[in-house]
């Protein structure tokens, strides 16, 4: 059992999810009755995390997702024609992804630093464009339509989240380009030797990540009928948390979107439950902090290494790359 959990990278996320669901079922069953709301929260936490996962799978990082979200929001809102605005927003996101990738792949900047720079620059740009004020969408009514529930309590955000997950999951597991992300993250030299277009793959993941962040920005803006240049302040850390709890290895090569999804569910449901319970925001921060700490200090590999150090003799193989 312990091994099975350690093997599947999603192991810990599952455990956490079970715990959360269990507690909620007893304490705050309403979380399930109002599943529409809960799903919306999960989508809020999880959407950007999906994009981030692609980058992390390759052993890279993107700190600029929050700023990307804010900037695209402003772009969408500042363009009178909503349709045009949305397209412009998404294009912005992809362009930002390309910029990050350029700095990392072509110029050769470490992704952590490169995206730290764009984190500042893009937020600044969002402020400049919006003059530091929320920008209200011109065509509010069509935006309002978007915010409404489609089927039952399912909002477009949730629908898009589900669709995006399915598509990315398909891409990463069934399509060659996506599957090769694991090679890029798992053993970059071997990937190069095997003739995999590593640089292209890196560009792809960063542009997808930028696109997803932009998508989140668009959805926020439509749902709120306005763009807030300060938006996304909490996004980076939240999605980062979902990715980590989802068991994605920051060195790349190990992890999955499913894990991220489970992580997002665990975090999202936890937050909704605590909100219903009227728990202080601080309590939520502390809990998430603890969860993170536990999740990271019990990484399957470290656990295996640790248990080997303790009583040793873990039958089976060593994973050179891990």
């Amino acid at each position, binding site marked *: 059992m312990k091994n099975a959990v350690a093997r599947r990278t999603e192991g810990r996320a599952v455990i956490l999810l079970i715990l959360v669901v269990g507690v909620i079922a007893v304490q705050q069953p309403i979380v399930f009755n109002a599943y529409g709301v809960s799903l919306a929260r999960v989508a809020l936490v999880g959407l950007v995390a999906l994009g981030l996962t692609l980058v992390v799978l390759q052993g890279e990082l993107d700190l600029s997702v929050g700023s990307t979200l804010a900037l695209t929001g402003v772009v969408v809102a500042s363009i009178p024609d909503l349709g045009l605005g949305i397209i412009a927003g998404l294009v912005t996101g992809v362009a930002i992804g390309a910029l990050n990738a350029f700095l990392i792949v072509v110029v050769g900047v470490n992704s952590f630093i490169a995206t730290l720079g764009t984190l500042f620059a893009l937020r600044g740009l969002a402020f400049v464009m919006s003059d530091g004020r929320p920008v209200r969408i011109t065509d509010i009514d069509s935006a309002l339509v978007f915010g409404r529930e489609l089927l039952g309590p399912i909002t477009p955000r949730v629908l898009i989240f589900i669709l995006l997950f399915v598509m990315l999951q398909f891409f990463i597991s*069934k*399509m*060659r*380009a996506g*599957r*090769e992300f*694991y*090679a890029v993250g*798992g*053993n970059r*030299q*071997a*990937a*190069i*030797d*095997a*003739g*995999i277009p590593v640089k292209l793959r890196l560009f792809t993941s960063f542009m997808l990540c930028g696109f997803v962040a932009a998508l989140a920005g668009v959805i926020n803006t439509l749902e709120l009928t306005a763009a807030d240049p300060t938006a996304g302040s909490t996004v980076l850390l939240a999605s980062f948390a979902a990715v980590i709890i989802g068991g994605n290895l920051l060195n790349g*090569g*190990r992890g999955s979107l499913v894990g991220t999804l489970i992580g997002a569910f665990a975090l999202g449901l936890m937050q909704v439950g605590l909100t219903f319970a009227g728990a202080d925001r601080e309590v939520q921060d502390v809990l998430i902090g603890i969860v993170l700490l536990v999740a990271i200090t019990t990484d399957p590999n470290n656990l295996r290494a640790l248990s*080997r*150090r*303790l*009583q*040793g*003799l*873990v039958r*089976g*193989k*060593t*994973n*050179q*790359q*891990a």
Partner: protein
Amino acid sequence: MSTSPETRTTRKTVIEAHDIVKRFGGAVAVDHVSISVGAGEIHAVVGENGAGKSTLMRILAGILTPDNGGVSVDGAVLEPGAKASLEAGIALVHQELSLIPEMTVAENILLGATPTKFGVIDSARQRKIAEDALDQIGVSVDLNERVSRLSVALRQFVEIARAVARSPRVLILDEPTATLTPAETDYLLNMLQRLAAKGLAIIYISHRIPEVFRICERATILRDGKVVDNLIIAETTPNAVIDKMVGRELKLDLQTRRVANPGAVVLSARGIRAFRVNGIDLDVRAGEIVGIGGLVGAGRSELVRAIIGVDPRTAGTATITVDGQTKNIQGYGSAVRAGIGFIPEERRTEGLALEMSVADNITLPNRAFLSKGGFLQRGKITEFATRLAAEVGLRPPEVGRDAGQYSGGNQQKVVIAKWLGREPKLIVLDEPTRGVDVGAKAEIHRLLRGLADGGTAVLVISSDLPELLELSDVIHVVRDGRIMGTLSPDEANERSVMALAAGEKVASSS
């Protein structure tokens, strides 16, 4: 360049490399090498560690671009780059495992050549091709098993399957048998002969001369990156090949080898068990050089690392005795404090901080007495480092330089120098001359001999048989984490060691 015997082979040349040169910084790894292999031929490339074999192969496979010369297949000169070579039908089985641990066997076999329909992986065809490849080499593995869960031997076969799956014209194998047992090796060799019979051109690299004589038609012999000869196997003998490989020194050194008159036991290990180490007893005496032989994967590294506490032990005790006092070796820290010095296998990743100066690297294990009240004593450090650099013959002896700027051989001298300053009672070396050029190698050997004569106990792991035979006053041969046998200098020779390493009960005559 000696007479290239193309003239005397009827085979149609498939791959031809002309006047290849490759430098790494200062060191020349491949020096004006030409080589050609015909259809259906198995062509051996032999040479000592660091001779340039792998580098040459990586050039043939288009992974490295040569500083001079070019590669042509069927007379057509190849574009630089791995892609062109792959398309030309050159498949390389790397010396280092180069699989993606979290991908399945099937995915790894088709890595970089995944069959797709509109970008979607055609898993049916993927399985099919992978299956065929595995069938061709006659190995059965669960196609959906993640490679990280396979044994090293299986990984090796998956690598070969991956090469075969590309239905290549030229198949290059770089020390494929290094991690294989005799049975597996035997199997592999037969397989290669079958493939050759189908008209494949095969380049085969191995340190094991018998293998070469069993399956190869011709041999290109490299030393220090140069082609020293190009022989037709049928017309030569193993000894001739070995002589060419190692040049003169080997014989000389073998003659100068002498049995030490060892002193008191310094290191004593009893019942050592650890990951891939299954119960080892071992003594090393002052003034004695104890050699540990065996095949890669035998667990030699794990063995010594477990003894001196680098890696965790699951059972057994190790003690070190320094002037009468016996201390238990708990962790690695205590081992170092007790006077053990360790030169690890992986120089670049474990031995040196490449972007720190030689002086800094030498300071690291000696920081204690090179600092006063927690402050480093710059002057003392420079003087100390310079002295040791001279002692090990570092060239150039500029201790201010980044270690990374030195050649492999000189880097290794720095790693050794790190420990000399402590005047260790026991010094442990894992593959001390891997990838070290012949000159530096000889100096390192002299250094070790000198240490032993000075009363230091020395424990050496080496895959380089001549080296092992030359240095050791006694050789323990390890297999599957056990000592299969112990050989005195006069019992020890290539065959006797290999026999034990490969686990052959009675050495088959040759």
